[in-house]
């Protein structure tokens, strides 16, 4: 039995506190403004994106009705490429698989991944006696603050540069001025040797093409290619919903994702299909050339397969994690990730109910959504969050016919 009244009161307190936090206010108003400008500019420079988004919605809808088969196809391709593929039915199974590969006492560099957040990956690996560094700037800031991400793409969205400088000065034990360039440089210097000393690189993936077994990682910072390219082992953890049938579909999905994620044209799109190899000496293929020798891809179910069969809620799985909806959400713009559990905002409540957290955790969040509908206007997948929010509330009240 969920005491919704109590949960709502607790949540209300958190939200109001966030809304009154001048740091969040300042950082979010800057972020929302630049998101809108960037995306509008990107869409007018590449106007075909809007039509392409429609196409990708269809591709992904199709894929959702076929996830198990797509997984099998992808797994086969990955194995053919001399990688290893796994299917984890839930978070603890995924952690077990990772642990078996990683072991203990290792140095790990990690690229931002919502799935990692979903299953508590960093905490788990640290508990097992490993050292793990988040290599995304935003995620690194949150790691130092011992805090969770406040936006799916910009985890430290709510921290203005002045705060970052204080944090870094304390951590690096030297004066870092409140200038973004200086802050970025400090992290670059710190992280550089980590990439080359690391035993393992861990990443998520934005898309997986089943036919070639290729994973896509879209990024700007360059940490993605270093962390997945330099260490001898690369582990990918990716939600099953990221599967699309072909490489062609994957390119289309990638373009739509990065455009709505305000990358316009990203500096890097990493496409990885297997371990590094060479055949330059006597045409004998040898694995582990300059890049990783081992390539592991762990597909995570954790409720996704069941959700893909649920007619009312399955469109939640179309989410590309572009983050666009969060910038348009009036509540998010006041409260950042305090409106959410692991997945954030209105779409996050649906994910909380079915994938990460469960319906008890989702219940109070489901009542925060204003059902104003602006997220859907922005969403490249046109995900109907207001409709699903209503359906979630109906489950909670039980006051409906079927």
């Amino acid at each position, binding site marked *: 039995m969920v005491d919704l*009244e109590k949960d709502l009161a607790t949540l209300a307190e958190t939200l109001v506190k966030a809304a009154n936090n001048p740091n969040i206010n300042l950082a979010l108003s800057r972020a929302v403004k630049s998101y809108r400008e960037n995306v509008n500019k990107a869409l007018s420079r590449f106007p075909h994106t809007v039509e392409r988004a429609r196409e990708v919605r269809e591709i992904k809808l199709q894929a959702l009705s076929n996830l198990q088969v797509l997984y099998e196809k992808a797994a086969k391709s990955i194995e053919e490429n001399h990688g290893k593929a796994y299917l984890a039915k839930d978070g603890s199974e995924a952690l077990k698989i990772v642990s078996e590969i990683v072991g203990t006492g290792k140095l790990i560099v990690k690229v931002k991944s919502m799935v990692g957040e979903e299953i508590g990956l960093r905490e788990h690996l640290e508990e097992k006696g490993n050292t793990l560094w988040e290599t995304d700037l935003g995620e690194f800031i949150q790691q130092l603050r011992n805090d969770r991400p406040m936006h799916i793409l910009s985890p430290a969205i709510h921290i203005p540069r002045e705060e970052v400088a204080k944090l870094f000065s304390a951590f690096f034990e030297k004066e870092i001025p409140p200038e973004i360039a200086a802050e970025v440089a400090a992290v670059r210097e710190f992280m550089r040797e980590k990439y080359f000393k690391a035993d393992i690189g861990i990443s998520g993936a934005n898309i997986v093409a089943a036919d070639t077994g290729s994973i896509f990682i879209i990024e700007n910072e360059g940490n993605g290619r270093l962390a997945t390219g330099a260490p001898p082992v690369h582990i990918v953890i990716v939600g099953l919903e990221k599967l699309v049938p072909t490489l062609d579909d994957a390119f289309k999905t990638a373009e739509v994702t990065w455009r709505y994620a305000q990358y316009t044209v990203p500096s890097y799109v990493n496409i990885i299909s297997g371990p590094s190899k060479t055949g330059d000496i006597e045409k004998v293929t040898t694995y582990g050339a300059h890049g990783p020798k081992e390539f592991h891809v762990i597909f995570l179910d954790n409720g996704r397969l069941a959700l893909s069969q649920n007619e009312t809620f399955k469109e939640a799985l179309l989410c590309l994690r572009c983050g666009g909806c969060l910038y348009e959400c009036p509540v998010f713009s006041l409260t950042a990730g305090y409106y959410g559990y692991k997945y954030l905002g209105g779409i996050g409540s649906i994910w909380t109910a079915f994938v990460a957290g469960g319906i008890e955790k989702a219940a109070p969040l489901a009542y925060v959504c204003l059902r104003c509908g*602006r997220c859907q206007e922005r969403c490249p997948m046109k995900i109907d969050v207001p409709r699903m929010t209503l359906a979630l509330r109906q489950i909670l009240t039980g*006051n409906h016919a079927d």
Partner: protein
Amino acid sequence: MLEISITPPATIELVRQNILKYKNPLGLKGRELTSWAEGLNFSHDSEYLFYTGTEYQMLPYIDSLVKALKTMNQLGSGKKILFGLRNLVDKFGFNPEKIYAGILARDRDKTANILRKHVQILNSLGIVPQYLGEEELYAGALLYEYGYLNDLREIARKLSEIFKSRGIKKIIVASPHAAEMLREVYPDFVDFPFEVYTMPEFLAANFAKLSPKAPTKKIVIHDPCRLARELDVFAEIREVLKKSGYSEVIELPQSGKFTTCCGGATKLLFPELAEALAKQRVHELEKSGGEEIVTACPYCYFNLSQYSNLPVKDLTEILI
């Protein structure tokens, strides 16, 4: 499928019981709901109905409700269960004479006046509509929002019977929330053979017969969420204003389909968050360069007026 059982928050239960027991989320009754219509011209057999959904009438009382809810919430949930929700509704069930004694006549006149203008405009278009008066029921938008579909179905059934028994064919709806229920939701539940118009749609379609006031101030539009997105009505507001001589209205980038919430949607569950939302929107509107904010929804009108330094007007107030 997910299985769960919850104890609903008392706030929701209170509003729900008010709607089911009385006819209105605040438990308003009698003249509180109908006095605005006194002295106006209505018909008993027109095919047109002017439907208020009792929403504009609630506005002057909302703050008292929010205050009363706060008092109630201080009881703590244990006490509330002890009391029994039914009793709570009776205890706080809004005997208007008592709880709302402090409502200013000025505030009541303001919203009554908006409804009166709706009817006067319809009259000037040659329409003398019916009004349900004491028979009128709230359309149930809050029940829909909070997830009480069975309750809503009941209301849909009752209302459609009333409409049929009065020979109504066309319904002009004052609030976008009620219009959403009537147009988008009721037809899923009941036979609902009526044409439903929001005021901006009706005005745009019949503008030729209207003789509006001359423009005075520079206008910035606040599109109500439900009106713009669910009902797809935003061009109509601009059309009406343009034809009324407003050669230039100020458009925020966050307008039309990208408009934002006035905070009203969450006023009962998260009143402080609602305040922050309203202020956020008012800030956008105030720095737009407009001298006057125009909207077409009772809750937007109410929430924005509370925090805005600019005058907030209903579309009908701009016209006559």
